[in-house]
């Protein structure tokens, strides 16, 4: 009874959110898992349990190797997107940290793309990345043409091999500013005494950044990677507004939507669970790591 009085009020306070989480997050995950091991491939409903068949079929027996293709697309997209945002974000933050006039203005300019929705920027980038070349050129290709830089003209996202790298460009444009803000906060969080101490020891600017400042940015870099990485895995709206749902640019999230449109609930659920596992593979090590560092400090 005394123990209940001890943690009862706290539990009561938390219970609404716990219940909502239990039902709408974990409950729905459980339900999706259940659908993914059933044979509910049309509106007629499920006849029973089929084990992991839906998962196995996705990898071995999907018509046109559609699922493997969508995974490959996702991999290219994610790698380019993560590398691009990290490099651009760090570069901008570094330049701002070194001191520029009108920092507030520049910061706003860099951060602004984040305020635009992926759908809106996707529509614009669809036009910018017009694959026509020569006299049919539009968007960026037309700009290159006008500048007599024809060798830069390319097919953008319609390239079957590296198109997804072009697809990552709007996403990089949109989120680099956010990564920059994270890094800038990281730079600002480093105490001035450390820099002064390094200067006293006669460290060059290169050694200052290499051995003193960058190591302290590791937590920030990791957070940025996690945030950008899991956003990339779930990418849907940008791709739908740039290319629409089609084989060339299909990623798992788009495939889920397409499967749902044909009432193939079991397949859609199986892809969703795989997507969840992929995101978990990124998030869970991070959670463990933060938990450990928090305990240590």
């Amino acid at each position, binding site marked *: 009874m005394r123990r209940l009085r001890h943690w009862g009020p706290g539990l009561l306070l938390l*219970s609404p959110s716990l*219940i909502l989480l*239990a*039902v709408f997050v974990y*409950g729905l995950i459980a339900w999706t898992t259940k659908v993914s091991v059933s044979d509910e*491939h*049309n*509106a*007629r*409903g499920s006849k029973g349990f089929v084990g992991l068949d839906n998962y196995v079929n996705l990898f071995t027996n999907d*018509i*046109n190797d*559609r699922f493997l*293709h969508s995974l490959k697309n996702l991999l290219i997209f994610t790698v380019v997107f993560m590398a691009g945002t990290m490099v651009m974000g760090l570069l901008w933050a570094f330049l701002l940290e070194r001191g520029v006039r009108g920092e507030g203005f520049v910061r706003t300019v860099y951060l602004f793309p984040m305020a635009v929705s992926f759908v809106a920027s996707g529509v614009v980038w669809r036009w910018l990345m*017009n*694959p*026509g070349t020569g006299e*049919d050129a539009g968007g960026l290709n037309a700009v290159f043409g006008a500048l007599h830089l024809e060798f830069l003209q390319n*097919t953008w*996202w*319609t390239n*079957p091999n590296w198109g997804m790298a072009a697809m990552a460009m709007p996403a990089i444009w949109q989120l680099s500013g956010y990564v920059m803000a994270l890094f800038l906060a990281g730079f600002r969080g480093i105490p001035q005494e450390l820099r002064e101490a390094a200067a006293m020891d006669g460290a060059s600017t290169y050694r200052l950044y290499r051995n003193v400042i960058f190591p302290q940015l590791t937590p920030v870099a990791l957070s940025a990677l996690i945030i950008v990485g899991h956003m990339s895995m779930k990418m849907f709206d940008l791709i739908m507004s740039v*290319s*629409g749902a*089609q*084989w*060339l640019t*299909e990623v798992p999230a788009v495939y889920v939507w*397409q499967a*749902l*449109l*044909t*009432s*193939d609930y079991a397949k859609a659920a199986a892809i969703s669970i795989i997507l969840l596992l992929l995101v978990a593979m990124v998030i869970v090590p991070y959670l463990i790591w933060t938990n450990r560092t928090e305990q240590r400090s």
Partner: protein
Amino acid sequence: MGFTRRAAVAVVGVAALLTASACGGSDSDGGTGSKNVEVFTWWADGGEKAGLDGLVGVFGTACAGQTFQNGAVAGGAGANAKSVLASRLQQNDPPDTFQAHAGAELLDYINAGQVEDISADYDGWGLKQAFPAGLIGNLTVDGKIYSVPANIHRANVVWSNKKVLSGAGITADPKDLTEFFAALDKLKAKGVKAPLALGKDWTQLMLFESVLISDLGAEKFTGLWQGKTDWNDASVTKAIADFQRLQTYSNSDRDALDWTDAEKLVMDGKAGYQLMGDWEAADLDAKGFKDYGWFTFPGNGTTFQWLADSFVLPKGAKNPDGTKCWLKTVGSADGQKAFNTKKGSIPARTDANPADYPKYQQSAMADWKSATQVPSCAHGSACSQGWQQAANSALGAFSTNQDAAALQKALAAAAQQYAGK
């Protein structure tokens, strides 16, 4: 232990409350004895909306006492509407009637037991005499009919820019694929870079289907979708080869273009031909482009590849009497005229007066009476939605990798998975 049980009870209790309140909210718009007819479509603007408005006008006079309630969901070429519809059907909250492509696409709903058999009403409304026998045959599933088509569109039509063609010295329409290739070669020699304008996946499926009709003939083509013709057949291999050759005459940015973008290539004189359904006639007219010609896809002969928008009576509709009156209006001569003169399609009835329609529609109406009717997978009259998506995906891959063997294998696998389901 006691704690966990109590928590579980609380979870279930809150969930029950939430679901109860969610259900309570949606019941207010119906009830028995309703005089509303909620018509669920994706016709929200343009010629489609005008056609729907025309139909509503006739409905108002023919079904006095019933009120039309517009349940249109815009966007995504129907994709948004279809997903909303699917969730409403799952929750047993169907609209009074909804739009669906006639033919195999309806099979999903029929097999799920979501739509009513209305064959008895077909006799009462005189539709069995008014519609051509080929259409009745295509609409019938196990002896029963589930939908009333509001219109007919034709898929296998080639549109051309007359000025571009005469500039290359092409005077006659090609009658078969050999002549078509010759005409395309002439255009290419004249400096037209992309003689055949082409768009992304589903428009490629349309073109491929037309080639299949040319190489297999109407009967074997229809058999492909009924499991009677083998997709591994040598004639399909030949059709894929022909289709591959046609792609060499098309614009290289085809996967980035919608059908209207491809149409613009024709209008701008950058392409000579485009294969597209006959909604292109209404679109070209609306855009003020006069100099266009049309002919049936070379080698298709008198084959009329049709698709139709149709309306159904869902199980559990709140106002079945009103819905039946709507369906009767849709099938009636007045209703079909009011709808089709505005949407740019032709009536499914053969007793319509051609003088009411523009020039292209008159020729299509004449063909509709006499032609051999075959369905289309790209538009859901030949195959289910899952099959259609698998075919689109396979053609999307082919457009970039040009692997003919892989395309045939994927199409055969799709047929094996979806035929007869």
